[in-house]
């Protein structure tokens, strides 16, 4: 009973602090609140905001792909008088009108992780170059197979049927890095190279990864290269490969750099993964907000670049010539939870 009352008092105190005060309000809207990538991003943003004396309000879509809740979050932030909004958009196109309303109201909008469509709909973008992330693991896979890359049988485990920009960029980057003609770089699955066994979707989760891998193995049991859009789906795909007794002779690659994924590189589950840096995105974004609140200056682009690239690093314990990489041991000191 006492504990219950304490919780109530705590809750009331929480409401008071978030209502009162005349601090500079900054919003962070993530895709969902379940994915550790965004949890880490939120933690980084909270730490940076505390340090810079900003009042950070966090919002999230209810699930990956939920646009409506993100639109509501933008509206609420405009109403609250926020100076800036950091957003990882669930739907890079559909969010644009709401973003425009915010900018019309004088709010600085910075896209994190996912560029908007068109990219200049936001004032700035801090993101991973996902095409390059895909390319790195594609080149690594081709180089580590050597001559066998010529008759590889490739399975492509993507995110979802909506083909959002991040998903498309990783998919196409991988194929390009592997040395496959990707036809239209905006389209998944229009390639005619016979080495591709097929595409399937995983929803970026273990169960989806396992199911997709099982289905593609049914189509061609001799698959020996597997691309996965993220590390949870790679872990699921590995379970399917292990059940089929194929886990030792398949090259499995992924993107993310989460600590569980890097540990899977160490344990030989994943051959190589491209690590991205969500903490840097959040911190740089919050710093740009503080600058804007103080001086009114918007972040300027580095020369010759379309967005602020927060970097990507290849993590593997089987390095190949010509592609710089770090070991899983190093990776574990840099991974994002």
């Amino acid at each position, binding site marked *: 009973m006492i504990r219950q009352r304490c919780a109530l008092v705590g809750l009331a105190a929480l409401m008071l602090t978030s209502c009162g005060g005349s601090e500079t309000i900054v919003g962070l809207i993530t895709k969902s*609140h*379940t*994915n*550790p990538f965004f*949890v880490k991003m939120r933690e980084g943003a909270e730490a940076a905001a505390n340090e810079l004396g900003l009042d950070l309000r966090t919002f999230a879509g209810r*699930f990956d792909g939920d646009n409506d809740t993100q639109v509501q979050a933008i509206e609420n932030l405009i109403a609250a008088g926020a100076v800036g909004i950091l957003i990882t958009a669930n739907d890079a196109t559909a969010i644009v009108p709401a973003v425009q309303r915010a900018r019309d109201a004088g709010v600085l909008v910075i896209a994190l992780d996912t560029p908007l469509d068109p990219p200049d709909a936001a004032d700035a973008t801090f993101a991973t170059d996902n095409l390059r992330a895909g390319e790195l693991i594609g080149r690594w896979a081709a180089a580590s197979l050597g001559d066998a890359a010529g008759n590889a049988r490739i399975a492509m485990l993507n995110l979802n*049927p909506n083909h959002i920009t991040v998903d498309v960029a990783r998919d196409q980057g991988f194929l390009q890095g592997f040395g496959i003609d990707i036809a239209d770089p905006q389209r998944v699955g229009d390639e005619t190279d016979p080495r591709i066994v*097929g595409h*399937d*979707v995983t*929803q970026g*989760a*273990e*169960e989806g990864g*396992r*199911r997709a891998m*099982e*289905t593609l193995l*049914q*189509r061609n049991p001799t698959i020996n290269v597997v691309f996965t859009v993220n590390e*949870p789906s790679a*872990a*699921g795909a*590995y*379970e399917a490969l292990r*059940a089929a007794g194929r886990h030792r002779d398949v090259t499995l690659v992924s993107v993310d750099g989460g600590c*569980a994924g890097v*540990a*899977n590189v160490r*344990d030989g*589950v994943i051959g190589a993964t491209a690590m991205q840096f969500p903490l840097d995105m959040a911190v740089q974004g919050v710093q740009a907000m503080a600058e804007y609140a103080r001086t009114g200056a918007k972040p300027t682009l580095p020369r010759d670049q379309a967005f602020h690239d927060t970097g990507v690093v290849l993590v593997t314990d089987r390095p190949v010539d010509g592609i710089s990489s770090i070991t899983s041991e190093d990776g574990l000191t840099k991974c994002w*939870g």
Partner: protein
Amino acid sequence: MLQRLHHYLHRHPTAAPGIVLALAVMVFGLLAGNRFLQPFNLSLVLQQVTIIGMLGVAQTLIILTAGIDLSVGAIMVLSSVVMGRLAVDFGWPPVISLILGLLVGVACGLANGVIVTRLRLPPFIVTLGTWNVFLALNLWYSRSQTIRAQDIEGAASLLQWTGRTIQVVGARFTVGSVLMVLLFGVVWYALTWTAWGKHVYATGDDRNAAELCGVRTDRVLVSVYTVAGLICAFAAWALIGRIGSVSPQAGLTANLDSITAVVIGGTSLFGGRGSVVGTLVGALIVGILRNGLALSGVELLWQEFAVGLLIIVAVALDQWIRRV
């Protein structure tokens, strides 16, 4: 002829989905070629429907009482996270972790049942609320972190026992899929041959009439929701076996998928009519459909399209069968 079929289906509610299942197997046998009909592929479908099948058992029990449970997926994920965290992060003995995980499921189900009966709220509203509550608890307790398969293997291989495979000639079954079939058997027996089962049907068919006949419907409802919670926790064990790891993001669509299996299996959403065996058939129909379409190279969105049509056809068929 049609009238005789009509009467036959009225007396045997699971016959209609059974016929659909047989048809689906035949159609895909022709469309998708040899690979589809191999024992290995058919046993793979059984593996793939293990989780939804188990949740479907829980959902059937609740729908038979004219309720609905939107929280089955959330109960499952919460239970699996408790099992994994206790065993791996806190190093508790796997058996104790498993039992406590099962008890979490029981507690969640009991909470649903008590709210439904004491506050007299519609189950839809109650479980819509608890769905969010359980998911929030899941995110808080898991800290949104996945526990890796390799870490569970070292600390608590018991949790992955449901993922062990059993080879029978060309087919390959997992312990989880066998447990699912056993679960269907046990619940079918309880519903068909015990007084409790009769009370469940009576409560769902006409609660006032059941009450007048001396059935204590509140108790029946609480027991049904509690058993459903326990079954969801069993599904959590099967889930860990299936994906190897413990993921707080698993099973996000599981509640609707389980309702789909129940509806296609011919159980009436108005309660009191249907069978748990139908749900197994319903889950298998969806599994066969997805597997067959994928093997035929059909894109994912058309798979969703087909499942959607199937739901409508199933309910329309159910309505027609009821009109005798």
